[in-house]
């Protein structure tokens, strides 16, 4: 798998994480935790965790693909694990 493809997937995943996190924040701010709303929040939490796990794994793949000497520039482009809000 090429580094470019991994980077594209990471960028896409960061958008996903940001979107879920924004909706989660909105849901937590607005809802008063009726049963349905709490389930939605819990689902968003689970989605966010899953999305971060994928991002984390993509980050690992990127590191595996990146030549060792290139990993010393800056902070390796930063971790995507905590990308987005939340």
């Amino acid at each position: 798998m090429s580094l470019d493809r991994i980077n594209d997937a990471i960028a896409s995943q960061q958008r996903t994480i940001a979107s879920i996190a924004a909706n989660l924040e909105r849901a937590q701010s607005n809802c008063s935790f009726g049963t349905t709303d709490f389930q939605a929040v819990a689902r968003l939490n689970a989605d966010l965790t899953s999305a971060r796990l994928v991002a984390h794994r993509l980050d690992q793949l990127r590191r595996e693909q990146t030549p060792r000497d290139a990993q010393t520039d800056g902070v390796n482009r930063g971790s995507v694990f905590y990308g987005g809000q939340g």
Partner: protein
Amino acid sequence: MTTDTASTTSTDFLRTALYAGPVSVQDLQTKAIAAGLLPEGREFGQQKSFRTAAERLGIVRFQTDRSWHWRLPDGQVTDAASAAAAPASPASDEPESPAHEDHANAAGAAAQSEDAAAGAIAAPGAVAGDRPETEHDRDLRLIRAMCLSICPSARKEFLREQGRITLKLPAGAIEAAALRDHLTVPEFLQNSVLARLHQSQPAELKAAS
């Protein structure tokens, strides 16, 4: 993994991956490999579990810039997000049957500071003096709402007092449990909730954590 489990997993994967909008099949393939749902070298679109999941979700396929993209059907994400973000119906102060006396109603209310100190969650209208909910109050309310979700037995302890629903928890119980696991309170609660949710999650995701 059974076929049914695989397609359920793929459905969850697709729903999450397409949450923010259209994604190219190439990106989906890379993400699916990262998620451990697709062997490297296998074509995303050829995987039966993803085709089944796509049918289940009503995925829309389209081509732009000579690459194929998938997206959720119109309104699906918006509806889900709106449902999650919409203010919930206020919990009623009117007496209701025990069947409707669920923990979420109780959890949905702002807690009084003295109730919070005692580990109680009160229904709307229970805030003394109608003072605005502080950020700390909100954190307590959210934390305790999550606590209820991981502690079904607590439902038995719901009390009805003066037309409001209240749950009594031992003071410091949540904090003590978190401390026991060497976690912060939010980490403890989130882990607990997620642990329950992940019982039905794919082995790949659990392994990836």
